[in-house]
């Protein structure tokens, strides 16, 4: 049996426990809202990370770096409309207007929804001299300064949408069959794609005319990819950051004056590596563990 006094205090305690103060009510509702907000926010952020899409996306000319482009593009479509209605948009063969290069990404596309991109095998970039898609951008996601030369003019050779990559295994010119479709289609003829001549050892009397992309000059317009005759193009456009490597600053071209200048101000550090053994002279330990008997 519990004494009455104790019993009473217990009951009182319990009553106190379930008492709901306005403060408790307030804190609970705040916690409820926070829980909902955190759950929703995390789901949302997770979706947003996924929605950034693939790094394989080819952007319009003069686009900022993909990360900055995504946060700066307002998805207005003015570039795509300017692309469709450019004055030069007439097919030379049929004399009819061509479809637009730039598409606005839909939910199922492999690019953030609503952002402009292009697929060279469908419609390549025709490298208009006046670059109509860039100046119309209201946000600066397409930055005219990236395609403006020293004379303060828009310069289509400065476009940098991607880079053409040749797959030598499927390019028939590398087999020895004569094909220069990509070379001829290139708007920077004999600059962005050059033909490398070689002797065909297999036949002994034929030549190789292999297409080689000049990485610094190629704009990534995709006219070569569109022109390629193989079933799936053997020359295709990749985003630069994906297709290109980077040697780092510490390799120097000893034969290149420019590269020499780059490192002229740098001096090497006097570095000595010290280990336990460097306390002794080489002669002291070199043959010490070997016995000659």
């Amino acid at each position, binding site marked *: 049996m519990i004494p009455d006094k104790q019993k009473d205090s217990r009951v009182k305690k319990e009553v106190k426990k379930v008492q709901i103060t306005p403060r408790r009510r307030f804190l609970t509702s705040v916690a409820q809202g926070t829980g909902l907000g955190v759950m*929703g926010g995390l789901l949302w952020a997770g979706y947003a990370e996924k929605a950034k899409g693939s790094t394989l996306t080819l952007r319009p000319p003069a686009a900022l770096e993909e990360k900055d482009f995504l946060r700066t593009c*307002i998805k207005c*479509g003015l570039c795509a409309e300017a692309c469709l209605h450019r004055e030069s948009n007439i097919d030379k063969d049929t004399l009819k207007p061509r479809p637009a290069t730039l598409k606005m990404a839909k939910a199922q596309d492999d690019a953030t929804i609503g952002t402009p991109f292009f697929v060279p095998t469908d419609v390549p970039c025709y490298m208009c001299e006046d670059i109509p898609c860039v100046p119309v951008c209201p946000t600066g996601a397409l930055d005219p300064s990236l395609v403006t030369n020293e004379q303060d003019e828009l310069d289509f050779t400065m476009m940098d949408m991607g880079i053409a990559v040749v797959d030598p295994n499927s390019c028939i010119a590398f087999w020895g069959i004569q094909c220069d479709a990509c070379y001829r289609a290139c708007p920077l003829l004999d600059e962005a794609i050059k033909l490398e001549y070689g002797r065909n050892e297999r036949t002994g009397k034929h030549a190789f005319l292999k297409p080689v992309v000049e990485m610094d000059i190629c704009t990534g317009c995709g006219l070569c990819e569109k022109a390629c005759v193989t079933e799936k193009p053997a020359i295709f456009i990749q985003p630069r950051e994906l297709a290109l490597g980077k040697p780092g600053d510490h390799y120097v071209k000893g034969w290149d004056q420019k590269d020499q200048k780059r490192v002229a101000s740098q001096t090497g550090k006097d570095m000595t590596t010290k280990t336990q053994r460097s306390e002794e002279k080489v002669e002291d330990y070199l043959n010490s563990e070997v016995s000659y008997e």
Partner: protein
Amino acid sequence: MNNYKYLILRRISQLSLLFLYFGANAYGWTLLSGTISSSSILGTLPLSDPFAVLQMLAAGAVLSVDVLLGAVIIALFYGIIGGRAFCSWVCPVNMVTDGANWLRRKLYIDKIERKIWVSRNLRYYMIVIALLVSFITGLASFEIISPITILNRGVIFGFGAGAGLLVAIFIFDLFVLKNGWCGHICPLGGVHSIIGKYNLLRVAHTSENCTLCMKCKDICPEVQVLNMIGKRSESVIMPECTNCGRCVDVCDDDALGFDIRNYTKNNLEVTDENVN
């Protein structure tokens, strides 16, 4: 007898804007090009969605003057004149949710359904979350899920899989929550409520003429703003009113009509009371 004056005017406004946007892409018209996120009038005057700009700034974007100027123009227009009129006169999703609402009344869902209560302030929390998520992910977060831009772009550039979201919102508004999207969730509506809080063009109520038929309360998508009906003669002052004019249309007693908000009267004091 029902009157559809403002409803028809709104549909003309919404559809003609979509038509101009469509023509800009399809035929090269320049009167209004771009999309609802950012447009250009005659290729010179920029207009942009202030909420999209806010999200982009939160995401860390460095923006050019054009888009900022466009957002200021839009904010000034709605802030001084239109109030939350974007939602009912411009936004294309309004036609989807109005459609769901119409069907809801025809099927008597309002009368039969099990009511779910969701705070109408959810949209304001959505704004905060949208800005936070934009900041964290570096991507304007509402712009990637917004059914408004999906519908708008769909009309201009062709629909994709995103159209499913519009179907989802229609079904949600029809079967789950009355005015669910536009009246509870959409953060853009919240932003326009904030922008248009002190605008001039407002619906005014004359309680002397009111016969308490409550038709206005039946039709209003933001029914809490009509709290003065039959009680006080004053303007609708709550910021969530979209100026859609449906209450003016359905009123048979000349008790509701558009008017310029009179700031010289004591309306301002009432504003604070009602908001709290």
